[in-house]
């Protein structure tokens, strides 16, 4: 009986001990001790050649004041851009504690921006930390600055408190135009592992607009083996996305059938398929694109909601898609950068033949023939059946 009582007491003592030990407080950090990072920029330090890391940290007090609307801090920035240098990213991150007094909390980081100097040198040796760190998410966006990453992180838009949040928003809403594409750490690391396939990441730049600085995405940077080798403009990016099946929405402008204006079409849905084929040693990629469009605007008085007009508009829109794909292929051929992933398609379908092509892929890529088949369909005219213009007989 006494023994049983002893065991019960021992169990209770153990349980009490475990409540303290297992409640997750070990190594716990209070929110006011956290330096919450929402964006990071990586540049080369011009003086030393080391890494210059810029972290955008949320100023909790400033956020609280502006959201409370109590005034008195209207112009005060809600963020703090703090920089440090180091021989490695991790060293630079830890060096920041000399300025912040706390370890950085990067779990809420939205984007990592690399400066042009880093991108030209190659990202391979700079990206490891971002993939390896505990708190870093694989969904963090990756961007390339046309100049310095620190300059991009300084440009605060009027409607957003945090530049990093604004940058993430710009990229995440790529679907409205399909002129860029969001690339995260996981996507980029996948391309780094394949020496034949090129990768891309959104470019970001700062423009001076009558005193206020705006950031915008002019296109995508193209990478080969982790090194930036060129840039794609908006149209070329969409050309790539057509083939990859990543076009979400966007605008296609074609001349109206009467030549008196334009028909402006919105991409409702796009599907694509790319199938490689080797005929007599020649590589042909059959690209099939299906697009559903809506007539969103017209600048002519002609009624475009007719079967013959639709036919002409559809033909013209198909030509636009074809031209965009060819423009993208031409540009990437010049760069010898297989951004479409044709190498991977061939490896998956013709793995035996691929072995002989692998070493000469850079020379083979520009010789690929594209067989593009686009089928577009206008599926709606939105709220108008006819344009608001006098009818034929009433003119």
């Amino acid at each position, binding site marked *: 009986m006494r023994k049983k009582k002893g065991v019960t007491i021992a169990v209770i003592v153990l349980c009490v001990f475990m409540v303290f*030990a297992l409640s997750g407080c070990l*190594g716990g950090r209070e929110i006011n001790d956290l330096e919450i990072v929402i964006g990071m920029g990586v540049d080369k330090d011009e003086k030393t050649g080391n890494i210059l890391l810029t972290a955008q940290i949320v100023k909790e007090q400033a956020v609280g004041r502006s959201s409370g609307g109590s005034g008195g801090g209207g112009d005060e920035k809600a963020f703090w851009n703090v920089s440090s240098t180091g021989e490695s990213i991790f060293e630079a991150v830890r060096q920041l504690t000399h300025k912040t007094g706390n370890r950085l909390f990067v779990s809420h980081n939205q984007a990592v921006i690399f400066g042009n100097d880093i991108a030209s040198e190659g990202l391979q040796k700079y990206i490891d930390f971002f993939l390896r760190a505990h708190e870093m*998410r694989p*969904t963090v966006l990756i961007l390339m600055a046309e100049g310095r990453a620190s300059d991009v992180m300084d440009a605060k838009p009027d409607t957003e408190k945090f530049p990093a949040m604004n940058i993430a928003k710009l990229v995440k809403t790529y679907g409205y135009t399909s002129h860029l594409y969001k690339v995260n750490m*996981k996507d980029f690391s996948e391309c780094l592992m394949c020496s034949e396939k090129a990768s891309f990441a959104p470019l970001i730049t700062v423009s001076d607009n009558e005193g206020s600085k705006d950031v915008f995405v002019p296109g995508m940077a193209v990478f080969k083996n982790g090194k930036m080798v060129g840039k794609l403009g908006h149209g070329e990016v969409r050309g790539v996305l057509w083939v990859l099946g990543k076009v979400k929405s966007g605008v296609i402008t074609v001349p109206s059938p009467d030549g008196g204006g334009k028909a402006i079409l919105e991409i409702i849905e796009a599907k694509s398929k790319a199938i490689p084929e080797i005929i007599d040693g020649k590589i042909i990629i059959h690209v099939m694109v299906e697009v559903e469009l809506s007539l969103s605007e017209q600048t002519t008085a002609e009624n475009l909601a007719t079967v013959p007009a639709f036919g002409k508009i559809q033909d013209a829109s198909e030509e636009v898609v074809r031209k965009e794909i060819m423009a993208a292929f031409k540009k990437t051929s010049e760069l010898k950068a297989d951004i479409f992933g044709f190498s991977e398609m061939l490896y998956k379908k013709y793995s035996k033949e691929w072995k002989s092509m692998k070493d000469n892929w850079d020379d083979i890529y520009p010789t690929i023939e594209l067989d593009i088949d686009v089928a577009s369909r206008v599926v709606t005219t939105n709220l108008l059946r006819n344009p608001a213009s006098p009818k034929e007989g009433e003119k």
Partner: protein
Amino acid sequence: MSIEKGRISGSQLLFMFAGFVQGSALLVDFTIGITEQQSWMVILAGLVMMVPFILSYAALAKRFHGKNLVQINDMVYGRFLGKVLSLYYIFFLSMTLSFNILDVGELYKNFLMPDTPFIFLLAVFAAACAYAVAKGIEVLARVSHLFVITGIFVIVSTFILLIDQMDFSNFLPLFELPLIRIIQGIHILSAIPYGETLVFFMIMGRLNNTERAAGYALGGLLIGAMNLLAVSVRNTAVLGRTQSIWTSASFQSIRLIDIGTVLTRMDFLIGIAQTILIFFKCSLFFYALATALSQLFGLKSYLPLILPLAGIEVILAATVFQSPVDHAVITQNAGIIYSSPLIYVFSPLTLLIAKIRSLPGHERGGGT
């Protein structure tokens, strides 16, 4: 003499088998570096390869109804050789249990509680297993279906949440890797998640009816293997060629869940499921180890061995490997070598000898 009075039913055996194999879901990563996009094939091939061996376990359980592994070894190989073989089994059980406890420690250290002292994580986990083992096999068997359902729920839900990020062309080309790598992968898979079911040698003797033991064991193995397959397919489809670079492919794929920026950071799902399932697996290992040792030493109960064994296992887990890299390399190479004779040789051999010698009838007649 039996050191355990508890009895389990056939359906409970099925869930125990399934939960045990599910507990190895993170160990599928061992083969990813070797078999890459063909890991799913290796999981199925390993399953097919293990079927005859599982049938031999069941045939032995049926033949030696109510007897455990140590008793069977004594009867088949004689007192001396039988005890040597039982010691080999006990070495396997002890080492594999410590490796599994270490897996939990590494899981928590890497992903869930990096600042908590490592030894503390191991000790708490081993204490939880010790408590479950002290309650007896019946208690573990009664809750086994809950463990399996939890595992299936997490695997299915994460599969659905990641479906939009899956690219099934990641499995191509289908037959690209050299045969030797596939064979190595099959060996690892059959030895680790499936071969570790050797522990059931100490459990199947508790079946109240061994007539359909083979069916229940195979059913459980199949459920467990389907779970491993789903995990492997999910990881390959989501991560593609990067699946081999991550410490845990499963964790990495779950970290990619992002449904409307609301459903994110679902890592805890894997944390919960893996803790539960590895706990179940380790408890069965622990039970088998404690009962085998007490049978070997001729103890009346295995209960006095539980706490000392828990301490030894924690010390082994904390000290046997220098680093996680050391752990992975030795488990993939040495681990599957020392366990191979037990998995592939001794159970069919025991069955064969028992058949030739018409055991256990002959043994009973022999008056031992």
